[in-house]
């Protein structure tokens, strides 16, 4: 530690003090098969605190399944998951939540007939202290106070936080509520599966800037998205998956061409390799070898 140069005080002020490269989530040798189909085939993955990690890949590349393992929604056949360096067993979303991992599900998991406060604390309602709390009496004032704090801190634009059902709000507003809930409860990581898929341009922008704010608070944010401009703009780290394997991990020079090439697996270099491999395979009477390609940087 003493060997490190003192950081430039001018520079330190411009960036939020992100604890750099601290691992929040780690997966080792994750594997999951559905019958004969291997959705995730031995993936090693690290998600860092204070970063937005995007996972991209074609349909069926295994990105959703990988993220669902961290969400507790899919239990891996083999492999290990670590949270803050501790091996954990995530059998269901409750387990993941207990480890401080929050997921913004594609269908949001919000009750449409309940208001923002009630949804923010859905399933984790705050109870009054003492005897009243033990009989299940809600601390509605405290929930309202914290919900209002949270929505204000994130600058979420919603009509009102109580007495107005969430089902009457726009898709973007609902998404923002789901994100605010994740951010409120997450202690380690927040996972977002296609958070902008159903949103218009302006609403997408808002949700993405929320993701950035949450990462800046020091949480790890995992983003699955097929909208590459969003990924390039936002992600600190991009993990590319193909055929259930991690084929690349980029932290710089994230360009659209490069991503597309990696996703579909046809850059010039690869194409030549493919042709060679296929020729060799045909010579041996095999049918298909492209899927067995190793991870390449």
């Amino acid at each position, binding site marked *: 530690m003493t060997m490190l140069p003192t950081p430039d005080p001018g520079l330190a002020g411009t960036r939020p003090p992100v604890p750099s490269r601290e691992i929040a989530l780690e997966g080792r040798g994750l594997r999951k098969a559905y019958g004969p189909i291997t959705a995730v085939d031995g993936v090693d993955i690290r998600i860092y605190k204070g970063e937005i990690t995007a996972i991209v890949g074609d349909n069926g590349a295994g990105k959703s399944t990988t993220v669902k393992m961290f969400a507790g929604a899919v239990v891996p056949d083999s492999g290990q998951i670590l949270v803050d360096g501790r091996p954990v067993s995530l059998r269901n979303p409750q387990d993941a939540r207990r480890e401080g991992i929050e997921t913004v599900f594609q269908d949001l998991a919000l*009750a*449409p007939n309940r208001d923002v406060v009630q949804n923010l604390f859905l399933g984790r309602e705050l109870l009054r202290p003492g005897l009243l709390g033990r009989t299940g009496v809600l601390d509605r004032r405290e929930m309202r106070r914290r919900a209002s704090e949270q929505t204000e801190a994130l600058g979420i634009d919603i009509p009102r936080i109580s007495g107005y059902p969430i089902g009457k709000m726009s898709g973007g507003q609902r998404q923002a509520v789901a994100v605010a809930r994740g951010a409120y409860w997450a202690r380690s990581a927040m996972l977002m599966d296609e958070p902008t898929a159903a949103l218009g341009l302006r609403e997408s922008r808002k949700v993405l800037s929320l993701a950035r704010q949450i990462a800046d608070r020091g949480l790890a944010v995992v983003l699955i998205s097929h909208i590459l401009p969003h990924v390039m703009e936002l992600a600190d780290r991009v993990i590319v998956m193909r055929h259930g394997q991690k084929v690349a991990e980029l932290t710089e020079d994230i360009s659209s061409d490069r991503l597309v090439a990696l996703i579909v697996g046809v850059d010039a270099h690869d194409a030549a390799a493919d042709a060679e491999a296929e020729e060799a395979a045909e010579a041996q009477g095999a049918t298909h070898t492209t899927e067995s390609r190793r991870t390449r940087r």
Partner: protein
Amino acid sequence: MQVRELARSRLINVAGLAVALVILALIVQSQSPFFFKSNNLLNIGRAVAVTGVIAAVTTIVLIGGELDLSIGAALGLGGIVSATVLASGAPLIVVLLSGILTGLVVGALNAGLIVGIGINPLIATLGTMFALRGAAYIWTNGASVVTFGYEDFAFLGNGRIAGIPFSVILLAATFLLVGAVLTWTRFGSNVYAIGGDRDASRLAGVQVTRVRVSIYLISAVAAAFAGMMLASVNGSADPTSGTGIELAVIGAVILGGTALTGGRGGVAGTILGVIFLGALANGMNLLGLPGYWQIFVQGVVLIAAVILDRLVTRS
């Protein structure tokens, strides 16, 4: 300026029903001077007490997106079982516990079929409705069990405290309790959420199974308790007691603005729905309307109320 939508739609419904009740009262009063006599008002209260206790709890059932058609049969069985225990000379507390235990068993049966096995609530409770009614007949071989002459048990349905019928006090207490549970507790909050979207609630971490099981337990316990009240009022428990009451109860709850599809409603509407139907029956009696016509009018009123509710909430 944003309106408090949730509160507003509920308020319109409750206010509408209150206005309808006032109009009904004025019409009946103009034809018969007896309606507003305090005795007659207490008569209405006593007449709706048994239905009302069940209706209060059925409000929870419907808000949770569930359905329990076996409440009438559970009422009958609860009355028969507790009356038998009473006739055997057991003390009142044992009698009351036997009735409540009957409710718990019935509720557990319904919950097992619906939450455990996953049978549709309509079908499951239709089945238990017949099975339990049959069980009540088998228990006494179709005969009634006399409860007349046991003074402490008679108090349940016929006693008075400061001039107010004890059954009416029980009715009011049930409504206050259910209202408080729905508004102020985690259980109540979860009932609304599950009625709104069960899968989302589960994903968000609500203990959906536990809440659903509780709903069927309290529904059957309320029905069995109402069975004891009715046995006390009538001076006997009959295996046919409460036949068809499930539809009157659900009708009153729907009339009060609780959605059959779940997620919306409250006890303020239900109590008005119960009183409205009670006042309607009472008024028709005072006006000397023939019995067959009374049934017909009740049906028409229910349909009219639902149509009106749709028009108001959609506009």
